[in-house]
């Protein structure tokens, strides 16, 4: 039929896989470049007014100017503070309450309608309360961010804990782990960890989405700078900060995935 030697049949799949990976990368990059090129052409062709969309080629220069004036660093640093604080508060509370509700059967029913009432309120709707409670402060921004993050972690954790394999809990009982906290630490939390981390990863993205909204009302940060710039119709500056958020999200997600790959190695076996 064909003259493939055993050696070459063995190496082929590996090569195919490697080149497939490269192909995926190149296609992704190509798609992005084509998108930017189309955007640039559209902006230059005069079909759409230059005041309506910035040109991609303007962005590096504008970014450089923002950095040279020190504005970019200041805005990114303060948004990172809000983001970090909001993410931490929302995650800790969401995971803790989600765990609690999943472990205490009666709370399941008690929380049902509270959650149905509170859950659909968008983080932005809390801005008036944030201002009344915390004033125009960084704590206000962190509060707004923490709301979206909270719900994601609450649902992910309670779901993950509820679906822990009961037979493994039985194993730990049989082998002498009589105390609840021993079972929590040795079975429930490790078994629920993958599901809980999916929630955390989703909230990394959700957090960045609300950063801008949380800074709209005058708290220093990326969102505030974007509002300022849009007021002056400096759309290239707005675009610079949009790209900045995309990059910051990409970076946090990348860090998260590489940590997850080490700690949850067992899930991929």
């Amino acid at each position: 039929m064909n003259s493939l030697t055993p050696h070459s049949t063995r190496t082929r799949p590996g090569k195919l896989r490697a080149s497939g990976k490269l192909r995926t990368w190149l296609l992704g990059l190509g798609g992005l470049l084509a998108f930017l090129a189309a955007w640039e052409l559209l902006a230059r062709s005069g079909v759409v007014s230059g005041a309506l969309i910035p040109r991609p080629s303007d962005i590096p220069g504008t970014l450089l100017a923002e950095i040279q004036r020190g504005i970019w660093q200041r805005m990114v640093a303060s948004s990172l503070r809000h983001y970090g604080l909001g993410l931490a508060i929302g995650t800790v509370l969401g995971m803790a309450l989600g765990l609690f509700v999943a472990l205490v059967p009666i709370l399941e029913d008690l929380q049902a309608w509270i959650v149905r009432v509170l859950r659909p309120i968008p983080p932005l709707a809390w801005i008036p309360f944030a201002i009344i409670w915390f004033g125009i402060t960084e704590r206000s921004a962190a509060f707004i961010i923490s709301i979206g993050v909270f719900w994601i972690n609450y649902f992910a954790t309670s779901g993950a804990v509820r679906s822990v394999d009961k037979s493994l809990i039985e194993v730990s009982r049989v082998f002498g782990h009589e105390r609840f906290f021993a079972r929590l630490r040795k079975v429930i939390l490790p078994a629920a960890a993958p599901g809980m981390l999916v929630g955390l990863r989703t909230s990394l993205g959700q957090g960045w989405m609300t950063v801008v909204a949380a800074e709209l009302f005058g708290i220093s940060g990326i969102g505030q700078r974007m509002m300022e710039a849009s007021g002056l119709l400096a759309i290239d500056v707005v675009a610079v900060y949009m790209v900045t958020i995309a990059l910051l999200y990409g970076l946090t997600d990348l860090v998260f995935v590489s940590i997850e790959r080490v700690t949850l190695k067992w899930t991929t076996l």
Partner: protein
Amino acid sequence: MDNIVSLNEISVGFEPSSPPVMEGVSLHVDRGEFVVVCGVSGVGKSSLLRVVCGLLEPRAGSVEVSAAAGASGSRPFGFVFQEPRLFPWRRVQANVELGLEELDLDKSERHERALQALQLVGLGELGRRFPGQLSGGQRQRVGIARALAVRPSLLLMDEPFSSLDAVTRRTLQHELLSIWASTDASVLFVTHDIEEAAFLADRIVLLAGTPAHVVKEYRITDQRPRSTEDAGFQSTVRTVRADLHSFQSNSL
């Protein structure tokens, strides 16, 4: 009598309002004895093991565990489940150490004991693997090592080989017998497989009926290792099978 455990007139039911699934079951295991409880699927064999180790509260009757069981540094029971039930996030070594963590042992003793148990089941080299990296037979061996590591007075085994292929099953049955011979543990083994019972047991306890009860016991004195070719083995299997058929059909 030198009993490790004795069950007296045990009844088991799940819903308080429903009739018991098992009634008036009395059973004892002597020191060093290999007892196999045999019966059809769903007759309550697993429940019996769960009653022995305290996972399931019987509706009536009592469980007596010998005072000698559970000396320091050991646990009265080691449990091998039908599925391996390993913790997938723990390496093999740490899985085997599970039952040692609540005993008064320091870290190096725990490590040493787990390694010995792994060597006993022939997996001394695989301690650093995760369960996901093992074959089905290897995982079941880890489950056996986990139970052996606590140096139990009584090893409870709930159809531990039923999900394995025939060759692996026979190998593990041989290994189990040699491990049993080299330790002073007693075994209470549950199976629906009459040949397996005849191959392993000092005594077969036949469970049948609704509610289930002990219908017959057989003491088997044939030399080990037994073979399916032996006349004694074949006659045991024939007798138990015939009895099981008649008791089951009576109760239907």
